[in-house]
């Protein structure tokens, strides 16, 4: 076996290119074209403006961009767009990426250093991308005695569960939510209930001591903080009389529930920090005690997936806090209205004068809602990140003490406040009387 590279010859090089081109053409004609024809035969093509959207019509949009507008509008109304892009995964992943950047820069400023600085010219804005490429290109090492199927599945399940959590959070009025369930809040807690199971499965399947201890810690922490988390939300449910998250937001158009239930909001926030394994409750990943806790044996993109999942979870929890206590998307109308002239006549654009009627793609109300929702979510995320700069890690017995004694007691106080508000007639089910 020689390690010396063979001598370069131009004729071989040209031959290899022509060989590859030959096989590409052959495979494309033999497999590709029949495959495309089968798809076109079975696919139900949409009808736009009383015309079937065949591939020919789709290609003509290249010549006339104004024809794309109904196409894009119809795409915006599909379920696929909701799941993949706006209130679902893409939007959450974008906010999560922003969160990671802001966390690193903010923490750096707090600690008198610069943080990511070089990658991407402007304040290290591409650092996350380079980290992602690094994680993708790293080797995935699996412990020899690990339970391989479960160990492989755990990061994927973690991201999937986090994405399921994201799908329940409404972002704007008019059905901008992936799954608008009538039992939305119950569904949220059902999804949250999966996290400890996945954590302890991944920790146990690694067959290693430090992940095992971390997994047991995560199990203790998540299970014991789920109870105050659920109890603190009961106050909101009593006042609104619904479990539907969209309706809970609609009940807060005049007053936010944090005004009437501040104790519930505080309990929810602290329990949320524990569920997210953020400092001071990062015991399952306590570095100086148990290396990296239940993440110890993950390497490469498996670790990256768990990180992605945990930041999606962070966004979803912040969104849930906003929906329950901070009035969701409600806020004054500050988005400028779109000029009527453009909607009717269109704007001129491009080197060849071209009129594009039918803009905007999204209405003013929805954009205003999304703006307020994002502003509030970013605010809550800021307060989730802040303790990392000022608190040390807590110990497991103190953690359980806080969870079982203090927070549950405060959550019951919160429920009594809500009941008192209802029975005194100040507030009734469904909002302000």
């Amino acid at each position: 076996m020689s390690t010396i590279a063979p001598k370069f010859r131009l004729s071989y090089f040209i031959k290899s290119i022509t060989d590859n081109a030959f096989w590409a053409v052959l495979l494309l004609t033999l497999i590709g074209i029949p495959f495309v024809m089968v798809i076109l035969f079975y696919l139900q093509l949409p009808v736009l403006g009383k015309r079937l959207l065949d591939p020919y019509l789709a290609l003509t949009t290249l010549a006339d961009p104004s024809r794309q507008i109904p196409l894009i509008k119809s795409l915006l109304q599909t379920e696929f767009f909701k799941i993949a892009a706006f209130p679902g995964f893409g939007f959450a992943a974008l906010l999560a990426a922003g969160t990671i950047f802001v966390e690193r820069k903010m923490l750096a400023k707090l600690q008198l250093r610069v943080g990511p600085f070089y990658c991407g010219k402007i304040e290290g804005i591409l650092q996350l991308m380079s980290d992602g490429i690094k994680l993708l290109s790293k080797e995935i090492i699996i412990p020899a005695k690990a339970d391989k199927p479960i160990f492989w599945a755990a990061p994927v399940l973690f991201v999937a569960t986090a994405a399921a959590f994201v799908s329940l959070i409404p972002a704007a009025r008019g059905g901008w939510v992936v799954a608008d369930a009538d039992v939305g809040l119950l569904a949220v807690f059902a999804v949250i209930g999966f996290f400890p199971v996945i954590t302890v499965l991944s920790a146990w399947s690694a067959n290693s001591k430090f992940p095992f201890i971390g997994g047991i810690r995560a199990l203790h922490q998540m299970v014991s903080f789920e109870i105050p988390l659920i109890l603190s939300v009961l106050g909101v449910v009593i006042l609104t009389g619904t479990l539907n998250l969209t309706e809970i937001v609609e009940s807060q158009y005049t007053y936010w529930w944090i005004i009437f239930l501040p104790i519930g909001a505080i309990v929810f926030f602290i329990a949320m920090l524990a569920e997210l394994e953020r400092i001071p409750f990062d015991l399952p990943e306590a570095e100086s005690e148990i290396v990296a806790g239940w993440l110890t044996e993950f390497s490469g993109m498996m670790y990256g997936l768990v990180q992605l999942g945990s930041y999606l979870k962070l966004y979803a929890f912040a969104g849930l806090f906003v929906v329950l206590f901070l009035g969701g998307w409600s806020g004054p109308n500050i988005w400028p209205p779109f000029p009527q002239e453009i909607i009717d006549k269109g704007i001129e654009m491009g080197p060849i004068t071209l009129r594009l009627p039918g803009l905007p793609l999204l209405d003013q109300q929805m954009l205003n809602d999304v703006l307020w929702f994002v502003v509030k979510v970013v605010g809550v995320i800021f307060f989730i990140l802040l303790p990392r700069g000022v608190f040390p890690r807590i110990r497991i017995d103190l953690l359980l003490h806080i969870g079982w004694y203090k927070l549950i007691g405060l959550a019951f106080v919160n429920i009594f406040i809500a009941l008192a508000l209802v029975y005194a007639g100040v507030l009734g089910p469904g909002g302000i009387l």
Partner: protein
Amino acid sequence: MSTTSLPPGLQIEKVDERIMTLNVGPQHPGSGHMRIIVKIDGDYIVDADPDPGYVHRGEEKMAEYRNYIQNIPHLERPVIHDSCNVLYPYCLGVEELLGISVPERAKYIRVIASELNRCVYTQYWLAIYGIFLGHSTMFMWPAGDRELLIDMLEKMTGARVTHAYFVPGGVRNDVPANFEDMLLKRVNYFEKRIKEYAAIFYDNPILISRTRDAGKLSREDAIRLGTTGSVLRASGVDYDLRVKEPYDAYGELDIKVNTLKEGDAYARSKIPWLDMLESCNIIRQALQKMPKSGSVRVKLKPNPKGGNDEVYKRVESGRGSLGCYVVSRSTAEPYRVKMSVGSFRNLICMPYLLKGEKLGNMPAVYWSLNYWPVEADR
């Protein structure tokens, strides 16, 4: 496995099935250059066995093959952040062996360099204590603030760490021009900065709830186990070599010895911080009393030889009493150099302190012992 298949003389250790053995280190973020074999029952530590020796470099043996001057740079390697203090007892011992008296100005410069070095070391120690408790800001702040004093030491000695500044007979070179103003400015700012640590770290309710009553060492046990330095003072023993056995210019300075009665991890972590504040006072006093001019070094003969004599000198380093025993046999090289270090003496009480503690307290108790693995291994 049956015991018959084992080679003669070996037997399998009988361990309760509930007990899990954790090898914390040497490749563990919370161990330093050592290993702690921890046996845990649930979350409680039933046995902790520190296993140092991973960074043994044979400094003492190396000293036997080099003459008195050549020994200076490598004898400070055990604690490069605290290099002046590590070298201090050796220099004092060699001066006594060779019969040299140090100029008055050099004595004060030594005190200043030694106190600056103590602050530099303690800041590093505090940074690691912060990150061991999961407090990343407490890692960055001390690590940044010690740069001030490191820059000052660089101006004085020419090196950021491993200064090789103390030599038998004084200090290697005189202080730079405008030294007093620079030093006073830095020390005052440094004092202001470390007072801010109280708000974020020492008065932090989570830190107090976590380290209070963790790894409690009573006054009697502290004396019986032979601890020294901040560990001893945190258990309420008023013992500081700078006051009890004053060396060089320390006898002429007014030094307050910080003691706390609790003897827990919190008190042990607070004493070095209080010592840093006291160091600032000492530096200001020394600057006032220092002679403004004069020689800073007695010229030695090349390759000096000691008589048939032996000497033991000790100083108060950042980690407690640090002694150096030098034996001379009328040759240019020392016959034997033995260092007695505070780190190792404090490590001895670790199994006693960790027994019965929770696993979460392990880093807090371990690092509160003011232990530097490289110094213990020498």
